[in-house]
């Protein structure tokens, strides 16, 4: 073989090896996801029983307890978070997409990105100093505010993105007919972006549903049902955390079950959101 041919052969070899390696990387990462899913499926689903969904926690050492209050507590706090974070985020997104002014828009965008980067534990500390310390009790409300703040940046960004994607023609048509701007937005633009905005909310919820750190100092935890929104409340991630730190095998088992339920809900939300968005998108656009 000539030197040239040898070189070419080597380059081809390198080519195949490296490209193969990238494939291995991708496969490996997907493999990790599949492993996590499979592990939680096997361990968690096996740990699920009716008690898990219907019973309150029992004292350590006693069997038969469940995470019913944690499930309801999580739902309650996520509801509060959505009530607090989504309207602000949504309207902020509308502002950036439809109204903005040069300087102020920049400020809003910058602070939104800033807010997005704040570690969740820091937001928990903030909610504690702002609400819990002043109100003198832990509460679902404080937890809801903490998670709501975390929902704002994503809400802003996704609302803006999906509003901008609405064709200009739709807007111009409405305005040409004499519709005032607010009405155009309300009846034409926003409904057109509805799918996207809805998925944005879903993805947002899926993200904060798993957050534990901000809840440690805000909603604290509860062995009983929590009436209203002003008492400490049990939540799924916080309970999973505490139970996972324990040497009690029954608590560990409940933590696996809880982890399974939480992960399934989050992943299902992600998948559904994705389906809604791609269904609406014309083919060929990624």
């Amino acid at each position, binding site marked *: 073989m000539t030197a040239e041919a040898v070189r070419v052969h080597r380059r081809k070899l390198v080519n195949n090896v490296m490209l193969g390696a990238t494939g291995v990387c991708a496969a490996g990462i997907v493999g990790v996801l599949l492993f996590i899913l499979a592990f939680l499926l096997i361990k968690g689903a096996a740990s699920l029983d009716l008690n898990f969904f219907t019973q309150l926690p029992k*004292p*350590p050492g006693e069997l038969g307890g469940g995470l019913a209050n944690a499930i309801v507590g999580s739902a*309650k706090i996520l509801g509060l978070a959505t009530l607090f974070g989504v309207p602000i985020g949504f309207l902020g997104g509308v502002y950036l997409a439809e109204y903005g002014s040069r300087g102020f828009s920049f400020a809003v965008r910058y602070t939104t990105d800033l807010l997005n980067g704040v570690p969740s534990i820091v937001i928990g500390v903030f909610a504690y100093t702002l609400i819990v310390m002043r109100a003198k009790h832990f509460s679902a409300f404080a937890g809801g505010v903490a998670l709501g703040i975390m929902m704002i940046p994503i809400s802003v960004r996704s609302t803006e993105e999906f509003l901008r994607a609405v064709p200009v023609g739709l807007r111009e048509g409405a305005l040409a007919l004499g519709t005032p701007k607010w009405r155009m937005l309300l009846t034409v633009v926003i409904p057109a972006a509805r799918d996207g905005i809805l998925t944005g909310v879903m993805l947002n919820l899926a993200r904060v549903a798993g957050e534990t750190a901000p809840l440690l100092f805000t909603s604290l935890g509860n062995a009983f049902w929590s*009436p209203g929104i002003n008492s400490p409340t049990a939540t799924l991630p916080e309970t999973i955390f505490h139970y996972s730190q324990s*040497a009690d095998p029954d608590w560990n088992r409940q933590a696996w079950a809880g982890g399974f339920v939480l992960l399934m809900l989050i992943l299902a939300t992600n998948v559904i959101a994705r389906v809604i968005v791609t269904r609406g998108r014309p083919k060929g656009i990624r």
Partner: protein
Amino acid sequence: MTTRILQATAALALFAIAGSANAQTQLTGAGATFPNPMYRKWFDAYNKLHPDVQINYNALGSGAGVKQIIEGTVDFGASDMPMADSSLAEFKTKRGNAVLHFPTVLGAVVPVYNIPSVKQSLKFTPAALAGIFLGTITKWNDPAIASANAGVKLPATDIVVAHRSDGSGTTFVWTDYLSKVSPPWAQKVGRNASVNWPVGIGGKGNDGVAASVKQTEGAIGYVELIYAVQNNISYGQVQNASGEFVNASLASVSAAAAGAAANMPEDFRVSITNAPGKGAYPISSFTWLLVPSKIQDASKRKVIVDFLKWMIADGQGMTEALQFAKLPAAVVAKESKAIAKIQ
């Protein structure tokens, strides 16, 4: 479609918010993990007796119990470390009144370990424990440990120390004991709910240390007795002030409290580690509920007072099943009178 969704969401929201909002009094407490199994059992039983009362206890560690009661974010705290004078003063400054200590049970802190080849209960001298936790004794077959355990084949595994990462009354009891029996320890580390551990990995709560020990071969940690028993973790005997190796038990813990019971101070703050006397388990401790002396909310005040009265009477009958020793009669009598101080 949208209106329907909105209606459904509103209904759900109302349901969630209303929840079980019948005329219920819910109290929130936070603190020690040491007595957590006992407290959870008590509050569960009390709730069955009085369905309109829910006492929600969060075991976050004694340090958190003290902090949160000072901040006023919980109705009562719980700690195995009596509040320091500085904490009492801080409470007075921030809350305007005093905080009262109410002993609830007696417990023992035991050295738990994970050595698969050793099934027996190991004997630990004070010097051995201090050396292990100081990091000067690093292998299980060290002479300091082997000398007290003739006939037991100790492996040459590394010792992994597991301690608390959070502020802990259990840590206080453990370090209080080590400070009393080991001058190097007293000088280097001292006694407190949070110390600068020379070696080891940190776990959260008694649970976390128990879990660390269970998951790590060669590990040694310190937990309240019930955590070792409920989770099937081997624990050792400790040599007491009289030189005997004592196993933590109801009898040995009660023996440790005998002296203190007779001379209990007014505020109930006392340490009973390394207690003199035959058969006394040297790492025993009272644990306390921390209650403000003035409680504004009348219904909450009533609940706390009623619960405390129930606790020192019927509640004491439930302790032994969970390996906690009852309060000595003298202490109960004194406490009875102290409950009246809650305004």
